[in-house]
């Protein structure tokens, strides 16, 4: 190795190290993006949303009126699943019911005999709660009012991704601060949001809608 090459190499290593440091800092290494835990009840979003056409707000009922999106009560599930119960009653138009998931649900609301056969559904005050595993979480020092976003027309899929397609829900966005701020500063494009929600016609119609910006003052979210 020639002398000239050797010190050129040393400088090169230094430059690469600096660049790597910068890039790693930028990459958002601390995000839990992609987190896809197993849930106590393998709730099939595609079945309910895509096939049955249920609205997100049916279960996440507070998303348009509270900072908190709301989690369906067990009673909400049982509103239908007292009838739509595993293999017994077929439902029109849906052939392949995920009986395993429904059985998982019944573990919380029904009696089972020793052989594992399901008995009657217990009265509501004897149900137990389903310990869902939280996926999307911003730290406690971030105040994220769902209703402001939902009412501003931000589609759920913009942030949460194609949940109607997800057999198992995972964290779609990084939820990093830069991710938030970019949207607040650049503005939310309705067309993009509608496209993410699968509404291509609406997206085309909204192509010329001005991006909706939001405040980027620190104390809007951190207090």
């Amino acid at each position, binding site marked *: 190795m020639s*002398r*000239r090459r*050797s*010190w050129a190499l*040393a*400088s090169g290593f230094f430059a690469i190290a600096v660049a790597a440091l910068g890039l790693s800092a930028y990459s958002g290494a601390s995000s839990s993006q992609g987190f896809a835990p197993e849930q106590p009840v393998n709730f099939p979003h595609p079945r309910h949303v895509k096939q049955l056409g249920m609205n997100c707000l049916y279960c996440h009922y507070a998303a348009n009126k509270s900072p908190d999106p709301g989690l369906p009560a067990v009673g909400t599930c049982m509103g239908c699943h007292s009838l739509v119960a595993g293999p017994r009653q077929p439902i029109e138009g849906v052939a392949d019911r995920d009986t395993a998931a429904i059985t998982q649900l019944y573990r919380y609301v029904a009696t089972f005999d020793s052989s594992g056969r399901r008995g009657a559904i217990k009265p509501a005050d004897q149900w137990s709660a389903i310990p869902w595993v939280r996926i999307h979480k911003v730290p406690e020092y971030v105040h994220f009012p769902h209703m402001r976003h939902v009412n501003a027309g931000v589609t759920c899929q913009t942030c949460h991704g194609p949940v109607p397609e997800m057999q198992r829900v995972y964290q779609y966005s990084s939820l990093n601060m830069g991710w938030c701020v970019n949207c607040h500063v650049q503005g939310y494009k309705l067309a993009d949001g509608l496209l993410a929600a699968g509404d291509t016609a609406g997206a085309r119609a909204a192509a010329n809608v001005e991006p909706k910006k939001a405040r980027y003052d*620190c104390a809007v979210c951190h207090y």
Partner: protein
Amino acid sequence: MTRGLIAAYHELDALVEGIEALQHRKFTKFTVYTPTPRHEIEHAIKPPTSKIRLFTLIGGLCGVTFGYWIAIWTSDYWPLVVGGKAIASWIPYTIIGFEVMVLVGALSTVYGMFILSRVPKITQTMGFDPRFTGGHYGIYVETSPERLKEAEATLRESGAVEVTNER
């Protein structure tokens, strides 16, 4: 194909004489070693001024520009008012500019020294004798094989305590 001779000197005036003799006989490719820099040697060789100052100047200018730029750009990138001061206020940013100027200027000066002096060197055996870091002065002459004898004679005449063939 060149050949080299290493001459070790014990006395400074002998070394100076050797340098002047080599110059007189038009030996142009030689390197002088000295345990400590002496003006006498510098006066004998009359070297060109080191180009390090260019590195210093460019490094310093880059530094001060970067210092001001990062401070002003980041202030405007996300404007936040503190203490009622202007969002990008150049007066305090002078400190940043100054410090980065010193940092980059100093590092590029050292970098320049490395480049110009060809350090770090992976090998240091050729044309060098460990005594040159001790009490001895030295000259390493590179020349064509046919002038080798003449060079050796010149060095010995000037008072070299030892002349050895390199390679």
